[in-house]
């Protein structure tokens, strides 16, 4: 099976500083993977490279068969329709309701989707994240956990092959964080590869999924699922 995500000798430099240094990795469909490491290790840089918010200095990045490293600026939107993204600060449009936020992600990717179809699919996605009754609410009327669920619904409504999440539990309490992790695990069971960058050691150790550890821009450890490893980066954070 071809990986959904593949990094080959990827390096990203900011001036003289190497944010990522010769990173190689691959993610298979249906795999839920944690990306851990101390602050400044390069986690966010790695996620930004996947979504082509930035370009690699060298190396190749393949996302669902698309060469993200060589993509023209005008084609970036096509790549982003293959990748669902969940942010720590949710990034919902405040003037749109939860349902409209989710439907927007569908329609910007495919203009031939009618309002009715977009609305129906948005409601399906909101129900899947447990917010079927809050479709008409605006972001400021929702709690942090609910806003994060809307963000997840928006990320998955287009059925992307890859979902990336940057500190998705960073603004949530522990109970809500666990609910979010259950949601990500459910998403992965339907064949979507999920990559979560997190600082939450408790979640990472208890879920026993694949864990990739970044330290000072280098992928120092790639621990397969089902094994409880020591969080090596804790020592250096």
């Amino acid at each position, binding site marked *: 099976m071809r990986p959904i995500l593949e990094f080959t000798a990827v390096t990203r430099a900011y001036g003289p500083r190497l944010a990522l240094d010769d990173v190689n990795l691959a993610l298979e469909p249906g795999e839920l993977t944690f990306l851990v490491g101390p602050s400044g290790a390069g986690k966010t840089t790695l996620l930004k490279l996947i979504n082509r918010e930035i370009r690699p200095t060298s190396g190749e990045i393949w996302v669902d068969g698309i060469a993200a490293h060589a993509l023209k600026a005008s084609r970036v939107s096509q790549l982003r329709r293959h990748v669902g993204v969940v942010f720590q600060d949710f990034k919902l449009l405040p003037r749109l309701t939860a349902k409209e936020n989710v439907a*927007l992600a569908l329609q*910007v990717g495919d203009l031939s989707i009618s309002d009715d179809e977009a609305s129906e699919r948005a409601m399906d996605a909101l129900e899947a994240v447990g917010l079927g009754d809050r479709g008409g609410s605006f972001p400021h009327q929702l709690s942090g956990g609910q806003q994060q669920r809307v963000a997840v619904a928006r990320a998955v409504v287009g059925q992307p092959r890859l979902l990336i999440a940057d500190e998705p539990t960073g603004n949530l309490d522990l109970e809500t964080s666990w609910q979010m992790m259950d949601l990500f695990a459910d998403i992965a069971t339907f064949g979507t590869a999920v990559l979560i960058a997190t600082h939450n050691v408790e979640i990472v150790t208890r879920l026993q999924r694949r864990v990739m550890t970044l330290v000072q821009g280098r992928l120092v450890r790639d621990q397969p699922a089902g094994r409880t490893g020591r969080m090596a980066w804790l020592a250096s954070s």
Partner: protein
Amino acid sequence: MAGVVVKGHFPRRRIVQIVFANVTRYLFRGAARNWLRNIGSTAPALSSMTLLLLLSGLVGMVGFALHNLEQAQAAQASLLHVYMRDGVPSTDVDVLWDRLAKDPRVASVTYVTKAEALARASRMPGLPQLAAASDGNPFPASLDVRVRSIDYAAAIDSLVRTDIAVDPQDPTSYDRGAYQRIQAVLFGLAVAGSAFLLLLGFVAVTVTMNSIRAAIHSRRDEVTIMQLVGAPRWMVRGPFVVEGAITGALSGALAGLITFGLAIAAMAAGPASFTQFAPGVTVTVAAVAAALVFATGLGLGSGSSLISVRRHLES
């Protein structure tokens, strides 16, 4: 997670309708809504652009009138009156007439009798009094020579002024410097007008670019989110360009209407003097000027916002 979504097969027409509705909503309706929402920050751009376009329209109409004036002067300068000596035999006039008519630089030659010259003078301001003060007819017969180009006027003047049929005291109406002086003045006015219009255009573009830049900055988060959820570039940039176009079109429409209104009012206030000072400026010309002002506003608004979007909005 949600399983496979089964899509029904829509007829092509239905899909086109959906795409059209979505494009209209994301590009035009969204832009109109944002424009109204940002009216406070757009108002200075709108008013200054209206003023600049109004000035452009007025300068354009003045330029058109001056151009017509210049054309009239050129036509007049290409007509040379060759004055005949009193009592000249008709055979001498015929010889000169033949010579001129055969000259390739001459377009036409017309003989004007003394009586015709008097009749013509009586229609010109100031000259009837001169005629009345004289015992006889003071106006000489002439050959009216129209040259093909005003550049030939000097040569024809040299050719005829020593002819036996021509009045040695006052041989022709040719004034070497008169047309050049008029041309120099009009050229100066054209240069000044063009520079003024360029300056106005620059100011209009700068003002609109700044208002679009402000709009981009105020909606920076929204733009980022749209980009991150995979909105294509035209969907992110398009509404800003449409907003600029709305500003330009409204300014243009307003300035065009005022330009047209002022021209009509001036025509109604003094039709005779208006025709004299602004030859060729008619209702149709004023309407065309108004339409051009509108089109310029639309073009400047869209163009400057496009530049601003390209400069201030990352991909």
